[in-house]
Each structure stands twice: as C-alpha cells, then as structure tokens.
C-alpha cells in the first residue's frame, strides 16, 4: 500500500476537472464530455483513483449543485436528491423510508455516511451496494437526465450486470423516487463487523398494507442486486394481513424462496452456500422483526403486537 501514496508526486496524468454550479451546466458538460466521471461523496471514486485502479480523463464534481442535496415529498413519493448523504437519510427520512434508513445506518462509518450518497451507490451499481435491496423492495424509480431529456428507470431494470447500469454515457442521476412506506419494512446485512463492511449478503423487506403486496431486495448474492418474486407472491398469500403473522412453516418456506432467488458465488467475503443459508435466515428474521416492531410508519398505524 505504501508505494501507492507516491503516485501523485511525479508529473500527473492529465485529468480535466469540472465543477458545474448548476444542474443544467452539469448536463451540458456530461453531453460534451461523456468520459467525465461524476463524483459527489467520493467514497467509491476516490478509492479507485487512490489505488490507481482507474485513471479517468475527467472528473465532474456534483457537490456544488444544491438541488441534488435536497429531498421533497410529492404525492406520497419521496424525491431523494442523488447527493443527499446517508447521514441525512438517517436523520430526516427514517419514518418515511424505514428500510433505506436502516440500510443507511449500516453504511461504512460516520465519516463515510457524511459523504456517501444513494446516487453514488447507484452509479457504482455494485451488487453489494447497501441501498439497493431497500430500493428494490420499495419499488423505487431512478430519475436520470441528459440534455436529451428525463428518463424514469424502474429500479428492477436499472442494474444490468456486475457494476453496470442502464445509465447512458451522457446521463446523470438526478434523484431517486421512493414511495413513502405503506407498512413495515426491514433491512439486515451480514458482515464481519458492525461497521465498515461490504455486505456478505443483505436483505430488505417491505410490506404494503394498502395493496397487500410484499417487496423484497437481495444484496451481494448475485451479479446484480436481485428481487425474490416467488417469495413475494408466496408471502402475500401466506401472510395474515390483519395481524401480520405467518405460520412457522410458511416463514421457513419464505426464507427458502428468498435463498432460491439468489445466485451467489464463492468469493473472499463468503461462500455461495453460506450466502444462501444466511439469506434464508435474514428473510425469516425480517418477518419476525416486522411482527415484533409493528408498523410504526408516519401514517400513524398502531404497532402490532408479536
């Protein structure tokens, strides 16, 4: 590692740097320079630069664009600016977006949460991104924009491969549109410690009590973040929606179906078999937590006893 720290001391590789003051200027720059790598919190991009894993010909700092750091609620949907840091999601949005806020609490460390953003997580599109399971479980929509116009990309179609997304080279992520919770949500993550870990695997669950639908999201157990559709359908049918209870055997079956939806590999963080097993545990545990923590959403629903 020590050899890496000397690389800036010689003649630098030419790297252009853009710091647009407005969103319009950012879109114009990205159109002219699709090679410009967007940077906001820097918690992914700078690691690649520091370790010389990537030498982009240009960087574009999105940190001066005010609206990217704001959030708003429009018609029951949270419009989360792409550069709102995780610390703000925890402090401002835990009631409206419980699963995402729980995931945010597991991101890195306080220093990382002060900088890292959901927009950056999406831009990197790692299968292990902490935000992704919650975004999948809640049916979020990615708002991307280029000088050609705005595109709303449902999260289910956003991840196209390992660290690849549906974003075009001239597009930037402006916001993520996330429905306000309509029922209890949970997120959990397996790692070697409680901080600073890339997920070995992770799982999010979101119940919609109005529509009586189930949303799931699986992280770090496939080439992309995944949903467990069969598990969602099964639980929607097996759940007692009034009392939010399921039989023990149905909870186990739900866990198995979540594990079946994953396509993990063996890697440095864990084996495929361990990931499948852990996902089944996380999924049944999420069900239990939902029953014991109730539905404390901002819609004023009463907590449901265990």
């Amino acid at each position, binding site marked *: 590692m020590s050899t890496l720290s000397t690389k800036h001391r010689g003649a630098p590789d030419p*790297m252009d740097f853009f710091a647009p003051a407005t969103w319009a200027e950012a879109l114009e720059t990205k159109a002219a320079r699709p090679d410009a790598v967007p940077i906001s919190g820097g*918690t992914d991009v700078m690691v690649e630069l520091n370790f010389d894993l990537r030498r982009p010909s240009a960087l574009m700092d999105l940190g001066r664009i005010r609206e990217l750091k704001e959030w708003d609620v429009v018609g029951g949907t949270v419009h989360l600016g792409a550069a709102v840091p995780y610390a703000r999601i925890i402090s401002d949005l835990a009631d409206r977006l419980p699963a995402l806020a729980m995931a945010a609490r597991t991101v890195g460390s306080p220093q990382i949460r002060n*900088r890292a953003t959901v927009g950056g997580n999406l831009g990197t599109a790692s299968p292990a991104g902490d935000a992704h399971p919650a975004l999948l479980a809640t049916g979020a929509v990615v708002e991307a924009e280029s000088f050609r116009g705005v595109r709303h990309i449902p999260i289910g179609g956003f991840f196209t491969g390992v660290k690849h997304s549906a974003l075009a080279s001239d597009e930037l992520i402006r916001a993520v549109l996330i429905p306000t919770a309509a029922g209890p949500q949970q997120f959990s993550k397996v790692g070697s410690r409680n901080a600073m870990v890339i997920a070995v695997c992770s799982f999010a669950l979101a119940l919609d009590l109005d529509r009586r639908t189930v949303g799931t999201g699986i992280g770090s157990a496939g080439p992309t973040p995944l949903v467990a559709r069969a598990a969602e359908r099964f639980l929607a049918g097996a759940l007692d929606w009034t009392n939010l209870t399921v039989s023990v055997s149905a909870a186990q079956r739900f866990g198995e179906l979540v594990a079946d939806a994953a396509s993990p590999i063996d890697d440095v963080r864990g084996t495929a078999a361990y990931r499948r097993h852990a996902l089944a545990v996380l999924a049944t545990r999420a069900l239990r937590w939902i029953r014991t923590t109730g539905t404390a959403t901002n819609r004023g629903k009463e907590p449901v006893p265990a």
Partner: protein
Amino acid sequence: MTEPEETASATTPATTARTGLAHRPADNRAVGGTLRLSVTINGQDRSAPAVPPGASLLTALREHFALPGSKNACEQGECGSCTVYLDGEAVCSCLVAAGQAEGRTVRTVEGLAEGGAPDAVQRAFIECGAVQCGFCTPGLVVTVHDLVHQRLIHEDGPPDEAVIREALAGNLCRCTGYEKIIEAVRQAAGELRSARGRVTQ
C-alpha cells in the same frame, strides 16, 4: 513535494485544444493536469499553485499545504487516520478530491488547539494515555472532537460506551485496544460539559 509549475503550463494548451473548452471560465474547472487550489484551512485563506484535481484532499493538505498532521494509511476511508472537518462535517480527507475542496472550509487536527494550548480532547488523550504509537491519534482526535461537540450542541448528555464505539467505528487503532481512548472521550465530554455549565452559570 509539489508539482512543478511548468507542468501545468506545458500541458494546458494542448489539452484545451483537444477538449475545445478554452472559452470556459476558469473558476470552476481545470483542463489538463493541475489547478490552483484555494481553501480556507484552520481559519486562514490558503492557496496552492498546482494541485492535481484528482489527488485527494489528504494529499493536498500534506504535500501542498505542509500540514502533515492528518495521516495517510489506508487511502480507502477505512481507517479514519485522515479525518478532518470539511465545511464543519467530519470526513475522510482521502476520499475528497482536491478539486472538490476548492473554496471550502477545512479544519485539520493542527487547527484544534487554540492559542497554542491543546484543546480538551487533546488534553484528555494525553492525560488518559490514549496514545501509543500515535499514528491513529490525529484522526481519532478530530472524530472525538466532532462527537463531543455534537453532543453539546444537541444537548444529548454524556455519550455512553455504545455511542462512543459507534462514533469511533471509522477510526482504527492497532495498539491500544480502545479502552483508554474511550476513557479519553468520557473525560473530554465531561470537561466540556462542566466548562459549559460554568459559562451558563
């Protein structure tokens, strides 16, 4: 240590021609290699003539502003040894691109002491023996400074061990086992609270 000035002047014209951005205002962009970086550091307006924009703020602080207090260890935000305040928030300076700090306010561990006297956190680290090899200490001191002052601002009361461990989760120490560090956090928090109590009385 610093990039030679002629590097910038030699590469800029060619790159400008290549990108066709010569007409752009120069205040918020750098084309071809290095930028003049102006940052308010520890209350002073500082400027460095030729910083690679993709170098980290940590590199800029250590090698262009001669402030080696912030330590360079992991370069991936894992160890917290490079923690500084950026616009009042504790961040890993290794994960901030130097160009992103343009026009911003940075406070490093060198800027915590007032009038040459160590601040409450620095004193507590010394008095509790919370320093062994010392490499992680500057980052820990800034993180703890942030923790105890946030607790004061929000009137959250003294931090318990769970709060302290959570707040320090991004700072690695390989010597002390954290016990004396946690003791130092408690002492600093207590000292600041009683100092504030005296002021309010």
